[in-house]
């Protein structure tokens, strides 16, 4: 039975009908990791230990990869920084607890930009991850290991985290579905903190249904995360059937400086929606370039405070192990929070954050979702970031406004460019309205099968 490329939901069906056992499936992926991961470097740690699962668990023995900034009890967790080179958490993040309870088996921990600082995995202290579509290119980041693993089917699905772009951008560059839920929808407890007012756990999957399945398991209030909301969790899988017409907002500001090939594919995708009765409406949003400034100030400030705890006393190595990117961010945050500059930078950024939030609120009176390219360009070559001042922010520019407003968004593949690299498009929804973005993404998948982007790549990586 050739199961390469089989979605999570289909694998669960195989497990439940006893066509395969959970340990066989785990073995299948561990073998693939052994065979292929020396090419990609998607995993920092793999887990070989076999676990028993019981019938009745919704994920019934499904193997999953988890980004290495989620604490996993007894399994090394590094956030891809040598500071945490040998840190073994004594507890699980809430996301991990929920996955285990649902019957998931941890395959391994995936590579990322160190502390999630970056958009290419090149800041990882464990080496860059390579894009399975082109090994001379980066997979995007910071959840680049999770994206590469799912792309080459070294895991059927994976958990990532996003502060601004870290799920959507690697999903776009690897041709996958990347779902960043609303801030507060999924608990941050046990996630190694980057920007606490922004961080958001989510998923990278091959299908929208898998994203809906995972969100249903991960979402919900957690008393251990004071910013997780007490709000009901709908059945995301059953809402996929809804095909009622929607009003889709499109803002020219989100097409500035976007590669023509990327813009063209997004326009074609809009035509698909038009054909199925959805209405496209021109809207005007504040230019995303201001979101870059807000994000830079707030995120660096939160980084400088969050990374202050790494002193090498209770766990981990000392601060001399911090990499260049972490140091740069800590120092900028220290500066913008310091006496005399706080009002000019941090306070100003908080005000403009409210302006951007209000701007979205205004637009969502007239539209149900907003559609935009996920990234201005497709995957860059390894090392190319040096050519771009502000590299990370430039690659994430179209993700940052939604992230600082806390909005949910999903990336879906809409085709390939002339270098055969995936192009991603994002659907951004209202606060806590993941239902609508997921069902619209699902309708697109049903109509186009993502033009084979997620499937064709696996011809290169057969078993």
């Amino acid at each position, binding site marked *: 039975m050739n199961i390469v490329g089989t979605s999570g939901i289909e694998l669960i069906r195989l497990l439940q009908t006893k066509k395969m056992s959970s340990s066989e499936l785990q073995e299948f992926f561990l073998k693939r990791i052994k065979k292929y991961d020396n090419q990609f470097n998607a995993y920092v740690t793999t887990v070989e230990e076999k676990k028993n699962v019981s019938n009745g668990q919704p994920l019934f023995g499904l193997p999953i990869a988890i980004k290495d900034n989620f604490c996993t009890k007894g399994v090394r967790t590094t956030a891809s920084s040598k500071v945490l080179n040998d840190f073994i958490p*004594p507890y699980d993040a809430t996301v991990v607890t929920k996955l285990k309870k649902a019957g998931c088996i941890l395959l391994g921990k995936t590579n990322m930009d160190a502390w999630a600082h970056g958009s290419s995995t090149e800041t990882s202290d464990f080496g860059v991850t390579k894009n399975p579509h082109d090994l001379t290119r980066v997979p995007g980041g910071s959840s680049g290991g999770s994206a590469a693993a799912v792309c080459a089917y070294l895991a059927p699905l994976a958990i990532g985290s996003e502060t601004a772009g870290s799920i959507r951008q690697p999903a776009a560059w690897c041709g996958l579905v990347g779902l960043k839920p609303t801030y507060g929808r999924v608990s941050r407890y046990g996630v190694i903190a980057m920007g606490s007012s922004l961080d958001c756990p989510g998923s990278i999957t091959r299908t929208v249904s898998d994203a809906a399945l995972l969100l249903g398991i991960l979402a919900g209030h957690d008393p251990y995360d004071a910013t997780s909301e007490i709000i009901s969790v709908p059945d995301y899988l059953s809402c996929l059937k809804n095909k009622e017409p929607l009003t889709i907002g499109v803002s020219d500001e989100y097409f500035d400086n976007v590669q023509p090939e990327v813009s063209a594919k997004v326009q074609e995708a809009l035509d698909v929606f038009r054909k199925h009765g959805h209405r496209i409406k021109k809207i005007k949003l504040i230019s995303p370039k201001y979101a870059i400034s807000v994000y830079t100030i707030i995120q660096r400030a939160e980084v400088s405070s969050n990374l202050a705890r790494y002193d090498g006393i209770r766990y981990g190595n000392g601060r001399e192990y911090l990499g260049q990117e972490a140091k740069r961010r800590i120092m900028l945050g220290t500066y913008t929070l310091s006496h005399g500059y706080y009002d000019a930078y941090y306070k100003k950024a908080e005000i403009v954050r409210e302006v951007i939030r209000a701007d979205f609120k205004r637009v969502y009176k007239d539209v149900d979702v907003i559609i935009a390219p996920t990234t201005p360009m497709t995957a860059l070559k390894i090392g190319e970031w040096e050519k771009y001042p*502000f590299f990370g922010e430039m690659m994430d520019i179209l993700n940052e406004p939604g992230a600082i407003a806390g909005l949910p968004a999903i990336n879906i593949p809409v085709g390939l460019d002339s270098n055969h690299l995936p192009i991603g498009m994002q659907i951004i929804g209202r606060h806590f309205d993941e239902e609508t973005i997921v069902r619209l993404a699902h309708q697109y998948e049903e109509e186009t099968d993502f033009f084979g982007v997620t499937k064709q790549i696996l011809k290169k990586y057969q078993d």
Partner: protein
Amino acid sequence: MAKKLFSRGEVMHLANLAHVKLTEKEVAQYQKQLSETIAYIENLSEITHQHVEKKEKKQNVFFDDQTSPVRILSPDQALANTKHKKDQYFSVKKIM
């Protein structure tokens, strides 16, 4: 605002406040990069904000003042990741 240029002394001061050690090369790099970033984020002054809707009301969230048995670590668990311990304590440098 006038263009801000970080002096060597300012970068060293920030590094000192943030408890990070820099090489000579990094000091020069950060002087340039921090100045560039500050120059970019000045664009926020272009945004006027007289008409912002009132900030959504935020509220404090507190735990009950009791320990959760699930989250208690034994001394061995708490000390398992440290490289600096003496008996059942973390050992740190003298501060006085």
